[in-house]
């Protein structure tokens, strides 16, 4: 990724089943330097493949991308109002995920903390 400056992040995934009936998708995002407030460079999103989980699967992937975009804008020295646009959208996705699933867990919980930290820094909170 360091040699590919136009690449935001790398993603790879696996679909695994223990019983041949229910399948889980594991999506791993490598953020590199864009991890910023995250403890690790890799975020893993784990979700069952079911029609009722479609919205959560979509939104959890979107959340990672929005965070990466916000941190990319920050690292490029973009003005705060631009960074705020990505963080605003990310906050909305956190809310949608929590509405459907209850509180976030695993790497998504860590991502939420990172987004909140970025928001606090941006707003100079109080």
């Amino acid at each position, binding site marked *: 990724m360091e040699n590919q400056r136009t690449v935001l992040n790398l993603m790879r995934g696996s679909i695994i089943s223990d019983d041949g009936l229910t399948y889980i998708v594991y999506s791993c995002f490598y953020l590199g330097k864009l991890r910023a407030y995250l403890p690790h460079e890799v975020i893993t999103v784990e979700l069952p493949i079911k029609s009722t989980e479609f919205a959560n699967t979509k939104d959890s992937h979107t959340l990672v991308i929005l965070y990466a975009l916000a941190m990319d804008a920050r690292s490029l020295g973009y003005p705060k109002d631009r960074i705020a646009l990505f963080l*605003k959208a990310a906050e909305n996705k956190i809310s949608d995920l929590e509405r459907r699933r209850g509180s976030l867990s695993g790497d998504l919980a860590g991502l939420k903390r990172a987004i909140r930290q970025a928001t606090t820094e941006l707003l100079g909170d109080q």
Partner: protein
Amino acid sequence: MMPPTRLIKHFIVCLCCLSASNLAQAEPLRIFVPSFFGPKPISQHVRTTIYFGLSQAFRSKDMPEKGAWILYGIDELNEQSHDAAITASSWPSVRADLAVWGLVRRYDDGVVVQLFLTITPLIRERRVRPEYWTVIVPDANGKTFEIARDIPGLYYEFEPLTLKKRVVIEYEKPEGIPLYGSRYGGEIRGYLGEIIYFLEIYDDALLLQSNGVEGWVRLPKLSSQRSEAVSFVKGMVRLLRGDWRGCLEDFAAVLSNANIPQNLRIDALLYTGLAKEKTGESGRQEFERAYQINRLDKSTVSYLLMSRIADIVRARRRNDEKRIDVSIHKFREAVKSTRVLFAENDKWFQKIESFLK
């Protein structure tokens, strides 16, 4: 009885709203519903159901609405994007202010529907734009300070719906949507084709003629989830036509649904507050609720700042000095704490900052 309207293959035909609107200055709006993406025939039947749902929302005999033409598109958009919806809506034969489009996809054990609303640039070409909010503050020297804002959102995505299994089974049949003998069901007389004549529309059923057969379509509930899509679209139409009471009703229905995306909740609050401001009430409560939900939303902050100015104007009219002082103080605080959300050279915000100078 409404005169029959024919759907012609490869052309867009309107379900026209007749009779004069009670909003004399606001033009009727055109809502375009193109063919949905996804496996056939199920995506087609889902689209037809949504189209009928919108038709019922605007043309039901039980509760006639005025001011919306709903256009049935035979073809899909060029791609799954708001830009493609805008392009299709700008065709001379369409000229739609709004587009409701969708994507149906199989996902593991079920079928998921994603619905989108695109508000096109054509709304800015209307002679009258009730949704545009201007606050005017006269001063003692006879001059005025004016600040204005357009609507906060143009592109919306609704909560994805998982189709009920019964609906999937029925809509996968090649015959499609059945035409019943009575408004309440009964014998199946035939099935809906591509050419449809609308005869009567009610809240719970439509009387149609298709493939030479006259019969009733009873629309199933697509999902066990309650969708906010039709209420939101109807609320937008009423907002854009300046029907403030109607707008408040529809966005109240949207907000009563616990299962809506957060950005829709925020904008529904903003539209509710806007409708109140337009009728002389303060919308500040709604704007503050939206701000509590997401402090990074620039549109929310814009509306909140304008409502604080409107509060100052209202307090001045009442000669309420205490209220004026409180409103000015809160306005100053809000400007200071939200500056970061606007670009350094943002002319709108610079005007806001100049208000108290």
